[in-house]
């Protein structure tokens, strides 16, 4: 399913995916359309532009992940505004790509996200590192997510632009282990985000989420 308010982009991406042998089950031009068509279309992967008419990409990500925890969200953003990208990832997106990425990069990213892998740009890795640093500056609480030394090391190498293969060679790990480490960094952040939301709901007196 492709969500983008720019018709040329939406159709371009959909065509690229179809030509690569993938099935595009739905397209949408804004957040409301996306949320309306999502339950019927039931896509495996949502390719989502962040800058769409309200509700924006972050809100759409949170909603579809709540509807279907198995859906994968690949963010495709032109401007890649830092705060938005980080929020989308915390809301449950597992892949991020700038729009200038080539067709091959898009297809490859999409199939990796579909398999449950995470697709990071170095820029996103840098942001996630920064987010963990900010969390560690908060007063110590047992429920704050922390990275292990190894996870930090792997994430740092991703931020420096090394491919998973290069990281595996450098740290003498298997490719799969590197993937797991990267996935964990995101999973902890998303879990923390959900815990925060639930706590907020309880504090507001809405103690039965969903």
């Amino acid at each position: 399913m492709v969500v983008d308010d720019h018709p040329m982009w939406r159709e371009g991406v959909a065509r690229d995916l179809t030509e690569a042998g993938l099935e595009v089950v739905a397209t949408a031009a804004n957040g409301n359309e996306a949320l309306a068509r999502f339950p019927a279309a039931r896509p495996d992967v949502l390719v989502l532009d962040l800058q769409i008419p309200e509700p924006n990409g972050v809100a759409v990500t949170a909603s579809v992940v709540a509807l279907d925890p198995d859906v994968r969200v690949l963010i495709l953003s032109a401007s890649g505004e830092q705060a938005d990208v980080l929020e989308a990832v915390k809301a449950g997106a597992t892949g991020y790509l700038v729009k200038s990425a080539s067709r091959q990069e898009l297809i490859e990213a999409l199939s990796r996200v579909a398999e449950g892998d995470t697709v990071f740009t170095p820029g996103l890795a840098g942001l996630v590192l920064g987010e963990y640093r900010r969390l560690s500056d908060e007063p110590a609480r047992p429920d704050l997510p922390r990275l292990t030394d190894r996870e930090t090391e792997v994430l740092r190498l991703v931020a420096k632009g090394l491919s998973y293969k290069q990281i595996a060679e450098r740290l003498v790990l298997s490719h799969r282990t590197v993937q797991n480490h990267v996935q964990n960094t995101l999973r902890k952040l998303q879990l923390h985000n959900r815990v925060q939301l639930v706590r907020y709901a309880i504090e507001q007196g809405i103690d039965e989420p969903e």
Partner: protein
Amino acid sequence: MFRALAWLRVVLLANTLAIFFYRWQSYERPGLGAVVMGALVFWTALVTWAYDDAARRGPVLLAADVVVAVLAILLSPWVKGPGLSATLPGFWVAAAVLACAIHWRWVGGLAAAALVSLADFSVRSHFRQQNWGNVFLLLIGGLIVGFLVGLLHQMALERDRAERTAAAAAERQRLARMVHDGVLQVLALVQKRGLEIGGETAELGRLAGEQEVALRGIVQHDTLTPASLSGTLDLSSELARLATPTVTVSTPGPFGVPGALATEVAHVVAACLSNVRHHVGQDAPAWVLLEDRGPAFVVSVRDEGPGIPDGRLSAAVADGRLGVSESIQGRVASLGGSAALETGSWGTEWEFTFPSGRTS
């Protein structure tokens, strides 16, 4: 302001009435005195209502206010008999003076105070120091209150202007984001399709790609507004300016450091990148990472070139040439940081560590 004045006027009226009821038996014409008191009560109620609406606060009303005060003073010798020690309305007249001060600033306050004071002088047969003190206070009060009201008014205007500017800036920023996003979409599309079509169009696509990266660098970091005021700069946005289609810049998000340091660090990184272009290739990919590690921040610049052959750096120094790496190390050291160089067949990586001045 006029609402505060209304309360003051009521308090002053109560004071005047109290003195009248205490002393009326000694007056020559207590009946006339009672009429004057009634007039003061009526007038106080009238102007309190009238001043409540800004539209009614005209010169006529304010002049009438002063005239009533002056009349009340001039009637005093008739009511009390000659040789009076205090006028009938007493301090109540201050309300009219303050009204003029609020409306016409210090000029109005001073003029009204002068008129009331003249009336006060004219009914007295002799002056005592206390009379002069009261008159003087009235003059000074009219002047100061007028001046302060002017000042307050100006401050309120400036605050309104600042609020309007801030709102306009926020709106401009929102619009810019929308426009930029649209432009970025088109640039990315031109680049993508151009490269796919090939030929001259591919060249167009390449140019569009360069502009796209430059614009994205600006858009991603347009949140630094308050930082630049306090002498700090967002190092992330300084570094993001160095991004090109082959140079990837990763940052932890906005990261404020002293302005001079941010500029210098960006210069050092630019020097490293120019080194990469020189020794590895014009289109050689390079990666820049800014990492916040609490008490320190680390900037690394990595390329995947052939690396620097062993001994070349020291050979350059031995030849009496200050190698690029020496100059980079020197600049980093002068900023209070340390530089580490790792090089091998997999490429070259500089890592610069600077104290951030934070404790955690």
